[in-house]
């Protein structure tokens, strides 16, 4: 433990420097364990795919697990998109539910089978232009994302000039406006008002949502690793310095906001496909809070954290379900165990996590095998050190 490396810190600055003359070629710093990491990643993917294939084969036995996984995939995309804007660009936006609603409704309206439309819209009738308009699911989802992004671009112009709390309030208001507009009587022939939409074609197997989610999240990761991603982080860390580095604040924020909304629209479309029936109540403030919770639990500024958070939150709500059932211990029925108790425990767990684990599970770093191993190694060392 006492091995202290004494590094002679020379304050001399490389004498006689001429730019471009150093002959230095940039070498990407290679991770010494990159082979191990790659092998482990591939192995994990294969294992995951095998597990999913197993679930898929026995879909009727595992419908419960499948629905948790599918829901997690949907929420993981939404949480990653929220993280992009909140965790990486430092814009505290609470418009998630609104953007998801746009995506979900676009997807639903454009994909309900033509034969089912009469029965879906039996109360209000259907707008004539919509009657025979149907597009493939994927096209509808991308369209939903684009419309969502379009709205984001428009409201971003005034709203992104606001800071922190004010931005949160403004976007919250926007989400509520979207929800109200979708439920308005004038939209009845498109959104079916308060009756909601059903008969939406669902996912036919578990791989569809997973692959969709993986592609969306991978694109966001790539974006964050590009120079634009670095610009987002610069704006988050210090706006004044970012501007002094030639980064246009407004344009950078708007870009992040629009891209995030695009993926929120996609995840809304995925949600519509997952639930197969939606109405405007689905997209209340609670939905935004749920996603925010995933982001905070997983770690603000960590995409992999968002994925883990989505699994934990969606899984957790289900795993705690036994709390809702009556429990009798030694002939005494414990009065606490009744429907609704689950949510109490769930909320307490979350409060504890936020109080004592403020940076979430991943903090602002991404998952890596090396880090996982180093955690184990440290623990081992600590226990050895304690024994001696």
């Amino acid at each position: 433990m006492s091995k202290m490396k004494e590094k002679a810190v020379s304050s001399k600055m490389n004498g006689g420097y001429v730019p471009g003359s150093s002959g230095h070629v940039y070498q990407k710093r290679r991770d010494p364990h990159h082979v191990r990491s790659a092998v482990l990643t591939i192995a994990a993917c294969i294992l995951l795919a095998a597990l999913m294939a197993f679930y898929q084969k026995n879909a009727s036995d595992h419908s419960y697990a499948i629905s948790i996984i599918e829901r997690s995939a949907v929420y993981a995309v939404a949480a990653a998109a929220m993280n992009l804007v909140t965790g990486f660009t430092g814009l505290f936006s609470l418009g998630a539910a609104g953007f998801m609603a746009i995506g979900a409704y676009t997807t639903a309206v454009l994909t309900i089978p033509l034969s089912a439309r009469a029965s879906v819209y039996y109360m209000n009738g259907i707008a004539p232009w919509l009657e025979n308009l149907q597009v493939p699911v994927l096209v509808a989802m991308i369209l939903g994302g684009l419309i969502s992004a379009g709205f984001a671009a428009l409201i971003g112009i005034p709203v992104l000039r606001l800071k922190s709390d004010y931005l949160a309030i403004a976007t919250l208001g926007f989400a509520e406006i979207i929800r109200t507009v979708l439920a308005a009587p004038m939209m009845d022939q498109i959104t079916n008002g308060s009756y909601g939409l059903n008969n939406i074609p669902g996912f036919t197997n578990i791989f569809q949502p997973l692959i969709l989610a993986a592609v969306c999240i991978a694109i966001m990761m790539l974006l964050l690793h590009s120079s634009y991603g670095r610009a987002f982080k610069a704006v988050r860390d210090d706006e004044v310095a970012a501007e002094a580095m030639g980064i246009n604040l407004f344009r950078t924020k708007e870009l992040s906001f629009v891209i995030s909304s695009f993926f929120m629209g996609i995840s809304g479309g995925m949600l519509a496909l997952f639930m197969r029936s939606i109405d405007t109540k689905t997209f209340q403030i609670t939905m935004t809070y749920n996603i925010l919770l995933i982001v905070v639990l997983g770690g603000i500024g960590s995409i992999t954290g968002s994925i883990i958070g989505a699994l934990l939150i969606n899984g957790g709500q289900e795993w705690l379900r036994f709390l809702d059932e009556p429990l009798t211990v030694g002939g005494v029925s414990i009065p606490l165990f009744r429907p609704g108790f689950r949510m109490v425990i769930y909320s307490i767990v979350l409060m504890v996590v936020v109080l004592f684990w403020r940076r979430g599970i991943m903090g602002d770093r991404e998952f890596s095998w090396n880090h996982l191993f180093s955690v184990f190694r440290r623990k081992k060392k600590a226990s050895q050190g304690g024994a001696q």
Partner: protein
Amino acid sequence: MAEPRENVLHVENVTMQFGGVVAVNNLSLDVDKGEIVALIGPNGAGKTTAFNVITGVYQPTNGRVQFQGDTIIENHPRGKMRKNYLGENAELYSNSIVRTPDRITKLGIARTFQNIRLFKAMTVFENVLIATHMRSEANVFSATFGLNRREEMANRELAMELIEMVGLKDEADVLATSLPYGKQRRLEIARALATKPSLLLLDEPAAGMNPQETDDLADFICRIKAAFHLSIFVIEHHMDLIMSISDRIYVLNFGKLIAQGTPEEIQNNQIVIDAYLGTGKTN
């Protein structure tokens, strides 16, 4: 030496008034190509405010800033300020030209900050790399999907070169905020250089440095000036540093220019000595 002096920065009658306080009062100064010009003055004299006006952080209440012959910032008292204006020369300017700091940086004016402003969650390398983003020609799609690899590699190379030059090669992958103070200052300069400026504004680069580090800094500033064909405009309190590196010095007190000249002239200027040491009487 027969080369005619080429003006880089020309500040003309700039006044910056906050409410009833005139932070900078009718300031005019010039920085010529290849010069190191210093701006000195007691605390609160308005030096940093002058920097903030030049870099677009504040819009001046009145006056004009020209860079390489083009007017980049201009303003005159408008609206409420027209009545409350306490400065001079309000009638000289009629335009209102506003530029945000990022546009000023793109024109070729880079700066460092008095209270170091590094990107806290980023490594030394990333901090410098950020500054190359503004020149990036790739749009967000090609950047995301790695279609601009060549440009990205060139930028990384440049960033690494600059880091090496300021002597932080071994620390390239550590978090910027974990560096000791003196190195953070050097990193800030490297970051500013990565924007490829023709004018570099240094706001108290030697603050918090020991005499040895200050000496090194003097060498360093002269070296980067030559290597990058820079003009440098520096705010500093270390008189030794100022006197050894600057070609000309401007002295600011209570927002007003009280003296200008070569280091020798300034050293022997009674007004400057009074401003720094006090005259013993109140005015």
